[in-house]
């Protein structure tokens, strides 16, 4: 085993800040949705707005980073080794077989991850952003000439749907973070930047 530097400091900062924001956004968001009482509706609404702007600013930096560093290529989907990885997680992992995909700084996500993150970035995030901003500026619709085309029912519906997808992604993602050996390896990598990979022969 050798340690390979995979995650730059910006990536780690981005990942953990985003994680914290999304957790808080989900907690406040589902309170606004009426699923439970936590901080109180009023506080949750205020919190949700502030956190949303925080996330938007963070994403703006992240998008800039992705394009200037070329890291956007990490999310280009591939079928290469896709089946192997899927088989590994459903079979091989139980038999302690080695992971069929080797990480490097240039290919830091396995094919399954690529697909999951691409879905996150191209579907869940934009749906959340767009519906959320429209929701936030509901009272400006008339001034912006949108009032005839939109209804809060649909905007809120899409935002809620995106939130459910986000939560499902989150649950899966958190579990997958521990699907490694030792189980804290991924977490440690996301904190230190170094992932342990098996040495090439």
């Amino acid at each position, binding site marked *: 085993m050798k340690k390979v530097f995979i995650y730059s400091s910006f990536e780690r900062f981005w990942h953990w800040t985003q994680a914290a924001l999304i957790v808080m956004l989900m907690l406040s968001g589902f309170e606004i949705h009426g699923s439970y009482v936590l901080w109180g509706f009023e506080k949750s609404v205020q919190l949700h707005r502030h956190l949303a702007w925080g996330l938007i600013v963070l994403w703006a930096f992240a998008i800039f980073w992705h394009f200037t560093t070329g890291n956007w290529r990490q999310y280009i989907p591939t079928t290469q080794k896709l089946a192997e990885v899927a088989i590994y997680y459903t079979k091989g992992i*139980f038999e302690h077989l080695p992971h069929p995909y080797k990480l490097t700084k240039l290919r830091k996500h396995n094919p399954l991850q690529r697909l999951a993150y691409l879905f996150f970035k191209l579907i869940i995030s934009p749906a959340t952003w767009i519906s959320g901003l429209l929701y936030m500026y509901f009272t400006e619709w008339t001034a912006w000439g949108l009032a005839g085309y939109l209804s809060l029912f649909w905007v809120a519906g899409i935002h809620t749907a995106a939130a*459910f997808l986000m939560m499902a992604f989150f649950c899966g993602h958190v579990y997958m973070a521990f699907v490694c050996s030792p189980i804290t390896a991924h977490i440690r990598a996301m904190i230190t930047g170094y992932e342990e990979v098996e040495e090439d022969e």
Partner: protein
Amino acid sequence: MRTFFLLIVLAWMTTGTAFGAADNSGSPDLFGRIGNTSSADHHKLAILQGPFKNGPQVTKVCLTCHTESAKHVMATKHWTWNFSNKVTGQNLGKLSVLNSFCGSPHSNWTVCSDCHVGYGWKPNGIPIDARAYDFTNESNVDCLVCHDTTGEYHKSPEDGGQVFDLAEVAMSVGRTSRKTCGKCHFFGGGGDGVKHGDMDSSLYSPNRSLDVHMHAGGLNFNCTTCHTTIGHQIAGSRYTPKAKDLHGIDVPGWTDATRTSCESCHGFTPHPKHPRLNNHARRVACQTCHIPFLARGGKKTKIWWDWSTATRLNSEGKPFSEKDADGYETYTSQKGTFRWASQIVPEYFWFNGLIQYTLPGDPIANERPLKINNISGSYGDSGSRIWPFKVMQGKQAYDPVQHKLLIVHTAGDDDSALWKHFNWDKAIKAGMASVNDTSYSGKYDFVETKMYWPAAHMVAPVADALKCTECHSRNGRLANLTGFYMPGRDRFPLMDTLGWILVAIVSIGSLSHAALRIYFDVKERR
């Protein structure tokens, strides 16, 4: 900018009517002025020294200086009891409408005329009806009922205007006050707080929590601070309420100079630190959040009046009454069955200010309860806002053959008054005759009715205003307003179910995967 306008408006108000009530209190108003700011001390006018034998004599003296005042008064609803709604074309006013309390004043002048701003409804103690009343006699205008500052003045039941020291009352005239207006408006429907739910005698001297503007130890507003008057015409109307003010702050010279809307002083953005709440004000009346409950001054208001049970007599053949633990009548042989309540959660409706009445003579609709007045408004109408209402309900006499509401002669010393003789048929005949309506079929029954009273008084400060979740919750106060999506109240049942199932599948899948990993791990180690 906003503060600047507010200051202008405050300054304008205080030079005029706003703090008249504090005139003689010795305490300074907001601008540090103490004492009476009026330009005339009526005690110094020889002509007012009296003695006066009756009210009209005082009025004649008033009119020697205030030469046009009677004409002004006689052009108001306070005098004519008549109002024409230009939009609906309906003739309204007390002479035309019928409410769900005492019904109509017609044939009941012995009681109802007490709140007319005129003398002469009961010459020599005998009530006359509206057809016989002289609406053109200037000396019949009752100046004192509104301008008395002594609190002594009242019209005696026998003859309008007779009190012991009329001269002292006449010399003490001043601006109207919560007391003079309240004398009638707090007691509408036959008693303290009966009618409105947002007005009762607790407003004579309210604390800040009950009414942030009228707070006796604070801003101490009069009724006319908001209900501004020009030539005795008083701004604000129950028949044509302003459901959404489009003027905003009323700057003298710029707008209509009426202040019967919150926006008249507070503008369109009254919450400087909470733009989200300002956005609410477009579709939610200020009253909706700032009048958290009806009848919150300690008095109860009547919410149910069932006339159908009236005229029951006890075993001795005498009328009787029953009261609740707080001393409020729950039954009288004269009036029927009542229900009272305080701290009532209002009912909320979209409202654009348009009200259509079911007038006496109108064929009644088939809906039950029958709407005595029907309010208009909807989510789709941008002129509508969500307003709080007291909804009065009960049962009233109607003609099941003619399908019309009936005017009942209730009060009086004659041989047909319901409250004396307990005979519906005779009372209805006399009531209908008083408006020249001969259509009464001879059959009467009782129909369940409801009447909408928009609330605009007893305005609470921020601390007592509604919190978000009063409405933004599953079964909140706006649960009955459908047709639009409201955060916290509405959900997407199918999507919510599917969403949670998805989350559950991912979670259970993950946990199962983890369990399998542990299982194979343990197995391998063995």
